């Protein structure tokens, strides 16, 4: 057992456990906290894949931004936090069957993978390479992404504005 295998096993257990927490806990507020744990664990998976820049982006945007927005939405849509926040789930058996079927379908492709190829070495510093790619070959999509973010936030403001 190398240190990498051990780290992968640990983060996989945390990620799967917190993901199950997101979908199974009856309290929606707790579900968001489990989602934050799952998002941080995903960031650690990025770290294991030698992408520290993505780990930072994941922490800032997902674990920071998305979780904050969802917490606000829950507080705004529950009249009495604590009493009406409990919620039941439906079709538990059907949902479990369907998602297990999807997993088995994906696993059917995974067992056809060619035998494990060793990891190729990254050419140089990944963060530098990503930065150069964003202003080089991917400059146009990067600009379009900025436009999309502005439009989406304006749209969200328009939806959520108070009626005159």
């Amino acid at each position: 057992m190398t240190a990498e295998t051990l780290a992968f096993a640990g983060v996989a257990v945390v990620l799967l456990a917190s993901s199950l927490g997101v979908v199974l806990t009856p309290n929606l507020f707790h579900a968001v906290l489990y989602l934050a744990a799952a998002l941080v664990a995903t960031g650690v998976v990025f770290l294991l894949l030698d992408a520290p820049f993505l780990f930072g982006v994941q922490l800032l945007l997902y674990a920071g931004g998305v979780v904050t927005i969802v917490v606000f939405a829950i507080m705004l849509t529950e009249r009495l936090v604590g009493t009406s926040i409990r919620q039941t789930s439906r079709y538990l058996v059907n949902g479990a069957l369907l998602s297990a079927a999807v997993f088995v379908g994906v696993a059917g492709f995974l067992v056809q993978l060619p035998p494990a190829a060793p990891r190729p070495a990254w050419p140089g510093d990944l963060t530098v390479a990503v930065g150069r790619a964003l202003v080089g070959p991917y400059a146009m999509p990067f600009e379009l992404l900025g436009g999309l973010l502005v439009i989406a936030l304006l749209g969200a403001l328009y939806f959520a504005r108070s009626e005159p």
Partner: protein
Amino acid sequence: MPLGAYLTLAALVFAIGLFGVLTRRNAVGILLGIELMLNAVNINLVAFARFHADLAGIVFTLFTISITVAEVAVGLAIVIVIFRVRRTVEADHLDLLRG
């Protein structure tokens, strides 16, 4: 770890997220399940990018993360508007467009 381990982990997280989308009644809970599924896809993208030493997967993951944030902002704005109009966010009660 081999590529297959990361892909299996991502497939498991995707299945769990799908379970959440299918079983949650609350619209916010459904959104949380969608977040899990998007995360699983991001793990796949980064794993393939790393094992093929291709930068495109990393850059694409950056784009999907940003677009997801925009999607969450718009989705939750819609949830808040629906709550204002219908006083509920239960997906089963939102059948205004049913024929």
